[in-house]
């Protein structure tokens, strides 16, 4: 079987996102090399920014943002209307925890922010969280530009 590095790295990045969501993620410093195996440093920095933001600020805010992102923007394979109904029902009954979710379980469910807040069990300002993540990304980008100059 032919080894596809870019596919493997994408698996690693999405697995990292899943572990961030379930709060079973490894420290970003340990993930740096794995996330940039294909040489796409910009994409790796974006994922690392999420990891650093989760550790620097309230982790539940980043986890909630990831749930919203994957629920609304990740393409779902095939038609599965029961998935969204069951997830919404579980959220309403408080029978689902973030630590049990996967990308597949939330993709295509189109959760609203209210439902995400119910799932995370706290409310936050998504715009503020997004700004913070992008700020960290800019920091990482700046640090990477400075690194070769120092050498």
């Amino acid at each position, binding site marked *: 079987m032919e080894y596809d590095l870019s596919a493997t790295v994408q698996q690693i990045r999405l697995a990292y996102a899943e*572990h961030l969501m379930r709060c079973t993620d490894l420290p970003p410093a340990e993930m740096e090399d794995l996330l940039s195996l294909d040489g796409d440093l910009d994409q790796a920095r974006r994922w690392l920014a999420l990891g650093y933001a989760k550790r620097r600020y309230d982790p539940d805010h980043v986890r909630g943002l990831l749930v919203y992102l994957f629920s609304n923007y990740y393409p779902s394979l095939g038609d599965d209307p029961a998935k969204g109904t069951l997830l919404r029902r579980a959220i309403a009954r408080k029978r689902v925890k973030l630590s049990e979710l996967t*990308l597949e379980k939330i993709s295509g469910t189109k959760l609203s922010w209210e439902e995400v807040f119910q799932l995370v069990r706290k409310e936050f300002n998504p715009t503020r969280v997004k700004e913070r993540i992008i700020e960290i990304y800019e920091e990482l980008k700046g640090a990477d530009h400075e690194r070769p100059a120092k050498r």
Partner: protein
Amino acid sequence: MSDLQKDDWHWFRELLVPLRTSVRSAHPSRAVLHAYLKGQLPDEWRVGVHSLDLNGWTLTEASQHVLTCRDCAQQLALMRQRELEHTPPWRDLWDRLPGAIRAHVAAYAIGLVVLFALNAFFVMVLPSPMVSRSCPSGEERARPEQPFNSQTAIDRNLRLEGLNRPVKLPDSLSGECLPVPAPRPLSQTWWIGWVFLLWTLLVGLHILWNASPEPRPTVATSSVMRSLGLVPIVV
């Protein structure tokens, strides 16, 4: 603010490159898919390596496989549809109730069952209290018979009439000093009935209060209308 921050969702959406292949090419068994749905698969970091364990799937491996395999996605969709169909309709009604009402109704049901069991124990298992009558003393027994009273004699004849055998008389007439049952204390009556009535009223009030669009206690007419709604509950 930089250009990135202006279009921040675009920035995040660029992260979501759909998977083309999953870590594991073999399909998970039905049991694995069932365990995946129930969240019973182990949550370990095992991505980027080929597992030698063909049966042991992790949560992420199963998730990524279903995201890339149309057959498994269809199978999972069927399993979810079946789960949805087997959910009883009363669960939906229950879920629509506000959390406070659900908690109150649950406490009401559990409380009534427990109190009923306690009440039944007090009434049926505990013996009712007895009071021993004062026995006639020896002098009273030795006292001569009362003067002849024709009415008493008639009564005694009535009691023994037509029967040439001894009649079992009640204790009050037999002259024996046996204990007699005393009136039951309040704890040994069926007080659960009162608890049931009062608590049902409270639950009804709670439901009505929540059902009203906005609690406005200052409006006299609405409170009158609301109290009318309690009539069937009180009845």
